[in-house]
């Protein structure tokens, strides 16, 4: 078992027992569910929308190389620089070098999972810059020195009182009644100073539009706009799979992203950046750098069956629907991307041995599949990770032995019947000895959390032999 695996199981158990945490998440999820239900009403045919989004992204991934080249050509024609990074180290080094060469002291960041993935903030702080997260949720978890809890709502796990206390401690700003409006105002003032003094703004991208050569960025707060307007340098870090073929595709993807992610008709600021400022414009960055990040994404293309994972538009719906995520929350996973998509993406793009266990933290309920706007068969992909995890020999040896034993037993009806008989008899003994629900019970993995299973007098097949025939 990898360290990450052991930690995950431990953290998950702790979170599962934390009823207050469960209640907070439940409240947030209910608000989300209600908003999403309202949002669906804006579609005459949600299923058709999903099919169309799947088709758009499938096409993008199918011709990923050529759309990336088209994007690069069109955006560099307007003066942007495009840097291709095979991994986190290359991406971090590029941006860190920019920081040093351009004398950047302050960086403002709009929310970007890709920058979390490559730990960019740490790299830039090492290069001598102060980095401010400007998405309110990200700003909050940054002050707490925590990773984001959820890819769309980073501070979902916190109450207003916790946030008030945080602002009092870290910003010296007191909001006694913890009114959310006033808390937001505090953050606005603090971050405005950062926006106006920063030399570099970093954003992610929701989509990279190939035919227009533009970076599409969606935010509700406006931090994405300020980040990409005020500083003289703008850096975009985006996974290569963010490509979409045409600007016209956004007519569908923008409303669908908003509907699945938050239940809105469209995100408030749906921004398109085509390059650094033009000569006749009064403001805007002097330089635009787009970092195209591979970092294991091309691993998903090495087999046709896993390519669909790259269709993901990072809406967060699968997380919100996942009953396991609802129980344990985002931090338990210990990765940039949690939940169903993260449990596939991380083992595949980072390392199977270290992260394959994530795919087992799933009851295969398939709720995620039913909501994915680009129709990724997430349960199937999770099963494929499990298959490959086992095939790579990363499973505990005892488990391998166990399943070979299972196979031996089920290959013969007599052995199967005998095995079942043994199970029933041993359970009866365990019960008689009072070992039930203790570590001495062979079924402790079951009975630790549940009352013991009933012990029937006989199996069905035995009953059938005696009574079954008409």
């Amino acid at each position, binding site marked *: 078992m990898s360290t990450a695996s052991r930690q995950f199981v431990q953290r998950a*158990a702790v979170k599962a027992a934390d009823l207050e945490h469960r209640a907070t998440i439940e409240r947030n999820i209910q608000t989300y569910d209600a908003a999403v239900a309202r949002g669906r009403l804006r579609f005459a045919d949600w299923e058709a929308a999903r099919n169309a989004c799947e088709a758009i992204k499938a096409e993008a991934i199918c011709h990923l190389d050529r759309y990336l080249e088209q994007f690069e050509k069109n955006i560099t024609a307007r003066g942007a620089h495009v840097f291709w990074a095979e991994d986190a180290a290359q991406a971090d080094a590029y941006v860190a070098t920019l920081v040093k060469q351009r004398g950047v002291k302050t960086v403002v960041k709009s929310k970007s999972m890709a920058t979390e993935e490559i730990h960019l903030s740490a790299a830039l702080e090492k290069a001598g810059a102060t980095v401010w997260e400007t998405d309110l949720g990200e700003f909050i978890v940054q002050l707490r020195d925590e990773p984001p809890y959820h890819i769309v709502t980073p501070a979902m796990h916190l109450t207003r009182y916790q946030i008030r206390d945080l602002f009092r401690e870290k910003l010296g700003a007191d909001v006694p009644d913890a009114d959310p409006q006033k808390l937001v105002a505090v953050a606005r003032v603090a971050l405005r100073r950062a926006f106006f003094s920063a030399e570099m703004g970093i954003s992610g991208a929701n989509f990279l539009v190939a035919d227009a050569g533009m970076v599409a960025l969606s935010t509700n707060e406006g931090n994405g706009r300020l980040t990409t307007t005020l500083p003289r340098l703008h850096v975009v870090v985006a996974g290569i799979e963010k490509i979409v073929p045409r600007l016209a595709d956004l007519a569908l993807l923008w409303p669908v992203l908003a509907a699945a992610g938050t239940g809105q008709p469209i995100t408030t600021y749906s921004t398109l950046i085509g390059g650094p400022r033009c000569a006749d414009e009064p403001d805007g960055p002097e330089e635009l750098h787009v970092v195209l990040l591979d970092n294991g994404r091309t691993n998903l293309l090495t087999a046709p069956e896993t390519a669909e994972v790259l269709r993901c538009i990072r809406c967060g719906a699968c997380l919100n629907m996942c009953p396991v995520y609802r129980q344990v929350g985002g931090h338990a996973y210990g990765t940039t991307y949690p939940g169903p998509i993260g449990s596939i993406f991380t083992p595949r793009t980072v390392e199977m041995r270290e992260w394959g266990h994530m795919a087992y933290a799933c009851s295969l309920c398939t709720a995620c599949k039913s909501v994915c706007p680009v129709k990724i068969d997430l349960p199937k992909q999770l099963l494929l990770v499990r298959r490959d995890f086992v095939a790579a020999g990363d499973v505990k040896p005892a*488990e391998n032995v166990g399943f070979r034993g299972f196979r031996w037993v089920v290959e013969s009806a007599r052995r199967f019947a005998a095995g079942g008989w043994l199970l029933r008899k041993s359970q009866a003994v365990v019960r008689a000895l009072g070992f039930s629900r203790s570590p001495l019970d062979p079924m402790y993995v079951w009975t630790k*959390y549940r009352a013991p299973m*009933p012990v029937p007098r006989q199996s*069905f097949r035995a009953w059938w032999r005696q009574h079954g025939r008409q």
Partner: protein
Amino acid sequence: MTAMPRKVALFVPCFVDQVVPQAAVDALTVLRRIGCEVIFPADQTCCGQPAFNSGHWSEARPCAERFVRVFGDSECVVAPSGSCVSMVRTHYPDLLPVGPLRDDAIALGQRTYELTEFLVRIAGVNDVGASFPHSVTYHASCHATRELGIYREPLELLAHVRGLELRPLPAEGDCCGFGGVFSVKFGAVSAAMGDTKLANVDSTGAEYVTSIDPSCLMHLEGVIGATKRKVRPIYLGSILAQQQEAAQ
């Protein structure tokens, strides 16, 4: 609607056979009551789902092969379980390599049914003469509802059970937390999910919680016992098997 087959082969999931056999006995009772001739091919063991779900596909494939061999000649196969039928219908095509065995498995999957699916869609029956004068709430299990599209059939059957008061379950489609190997690999989370599901069940005040998946009920029964709740789990086929004066 296809003509009702005379002969039905009963596919009894491994854990039902060994741990909760009453579910199969009751399914058998109901099938006979509506006029089916039911046989139990004793050579069956396990459909392979535990191995498949754990990623041990090379241990699951022999199970699939065996299943196709044991049931291949059956006109019709019925199981008291949504998840096991889903294994055959939805996942055997993923598990097996392209070839004749896989073709046979796919064809067999098309005539392998969960009990309520068989009763309503194939036999065309929604009243099996059952009587169960109790309040009941229905848990819409994951594999059945989302993988097999079985939802209205169990409800139709319950609607015709004399004396039964059906109470809608909030978040009825939410997972109970069993998930096969998940229940032991992530026992704490699994039990917590069961607890959340049972809190919803409690809110209905129903005496019984039912489902077409005995595996869900087995897990819920365990959590009920551990949390000392009063509600009783009962397999839907067992409700259907109940007749006048036979209430538990």
